[in-house]
């Protein structure tokens, strides 16, 4: 209804470039233009987003595909309402397994017996890497995974506590420049997927009650996505503003590609991968995952 449309909408995202479309839409007044009053809330850990949505602390959030699917699998009634970012050549290029000095990785088998730090177990990069290992015929159980958050990666690689970290730009460049090691594998490039990384989700109840708002939101995001993908200056400025990262640092890395459309079938690859990694307990029905 119109009353709900005037209420302020809180959008919760982590400090990455994935939600750049929403950031730009706020900064450029696109939401306002569509009659939406939007505020962005920074959320530290992506897996908190579903709970934040459910408690109505935020109405729309940007969970990763894995977080979203696990939440739905766990019984949370969430739906995707618009796309945010998808993998593409650029983003896949930015994802690497970075190995410390003294370790050489020539082929996937070389990861056997190594200690690998992932920014979140069962999270996006980890799932991708395991998928890659499986495709290359390496038993993921033969690799020891530990959790290492992005900001501590450089220190941990330097201390030698782990042999490799699953990471992304700008950390790859920073660690390479600091002489801490080298890129061991570009597994995302080899997988060459174009599935969604993060998309906008809401609770089904809220989305159905505020159908008109959702439509306006989609329109605004679609408009902003164009800017993200075409105008790096503007996109970087908005990202830096939201994440409080230094502008130079943000500019150094191209933002992930924005893709405002989200179709149910976009999620089927993730479901399959996660099922094979025993991360889901039930076979999810894709048609119910996305609001049409």
């Amino acid at each position, binding site marked *: 209804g119109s009353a709900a449309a005037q209420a302020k909408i809180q959008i919760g995202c982590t*400090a990455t470039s994935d939600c750049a479309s929403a950031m730009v839409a706020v900064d450029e007044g696109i939401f306002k233009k569509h009659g939406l009053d939007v505020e962005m809330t920074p959320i530290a850990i992506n897996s908190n987003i579903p*709970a934040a949505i459910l*408690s*109505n602390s*935020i109405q729309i959030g940007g969970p990763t595909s894995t977080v979203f699917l696990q939440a739905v699998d766990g019984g949370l009634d969430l739906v995707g309402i618009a796309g945010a970012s998808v993998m593409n050549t650029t983003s896949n290029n930015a994802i690497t397994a970075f190995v410390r000095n003294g370790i050489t990785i020539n082929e996937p088998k070389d990861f056997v017996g190594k200690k690998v730090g992932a920014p979140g177990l069962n999270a996006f990069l980890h799932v991708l890497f395991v998928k890659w290992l499986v495709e290359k015929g390496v038993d993921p159980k033969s690799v020891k995974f530990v959790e290492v958050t992005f900001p501590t990666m450089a*220190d941990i690689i330097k201390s030698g506590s782990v042999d490799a970290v699953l990471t992304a730009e700008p950390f790859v460049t*920073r660690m390479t420049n600091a002489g801490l090691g080298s890129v061991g594998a570009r597994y995302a490039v080899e997988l060459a997927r174009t599935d969604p990384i993060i998309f906008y989700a809401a609770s089904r109840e809220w989305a159905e009650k505020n159908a008109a708002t959702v439509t306006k939101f989609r329109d605004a995001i679609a408009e902003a996505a164009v800017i993200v993908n075409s105008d790096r200056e503007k996109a970087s400025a908005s990202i830096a503003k939201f*994440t*409080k990262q230094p502008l130079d640092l943000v500019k150094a890395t191209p933002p992930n590609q924005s893709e405002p459309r989200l179709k149910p079938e976009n999620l089927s690859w993730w479901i399959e991968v996660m099922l094979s990694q025993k991360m889901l307990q039930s076979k999810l029905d894709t048609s119910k995952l996305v609001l049409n």
Partner: protein
Amino acid sequence: MSLARTKPLLLPLAALLAFELWIRLAHLQSDSLAPPSAVLAALVAALADLTIPIATRDTLLAAFAGLAIGSIIGLGLGIAFGVSSMLDRLMEVTVEAIRPIPSIALLPIALIALGFGYRMEIVIVTFACVWPMLILSRTAVRGIEPRLMEVSRALRLTPVQRTIKIIIPAALPRIFVAFRLSAGIALIVAVTVEIAINPLGLGAGIMLAQQALRPDLMLAYLVWIGAIGYGLNLALIVVQHRLFGRAATAGAGS
């Protein structure tokens, strides 16, 4: 400033100097460490642009509210358990099984039930503050000179009178230690909740600074939190001296 007042500063100053030298000389590059001089600069900047003062207000609001509620509950239960060994024994299993549950493990549930904001943070700080208050005030009550409890029995003091006139004053020095401890815990838990989930206050500031790869700012927050805690404790000690005054000093001999 007299020499006596500068003495406490010697150790930290020496440590900071050593740290600065180490980082500068080793050309340490880290996303988690920064030389003290850079930290100081970041602190001054963040104080000036009011981000730290505002974050401090938010954190302290939640911490104090939780501390107040938690202390009252904990004190009440601690006294009850200290006085009545029956109650203490009956509740032992329940209390000892709930007490060690880390609130951080329950954060996702608290988030869903209460959402972001002060309410959730206050509830969790309360949960954390109840236990030290309970345990230490129970010990304090048990440690009261038994002859004093007998005096209160002989005078047929009502349970309320007994609590107000004998138990609390006798146990007060120890209860105050518990309260100081709880105050520290309240601050820590509030910040931890903010780091883990709640997007407000100093903890969120730390998290944001860390993710923004600003170790100087992150450490500036850390130093600031230390300063707040230090000030808080100092204030409580002043209150303690005010409260107990001559009775305490007369009792403690020289």
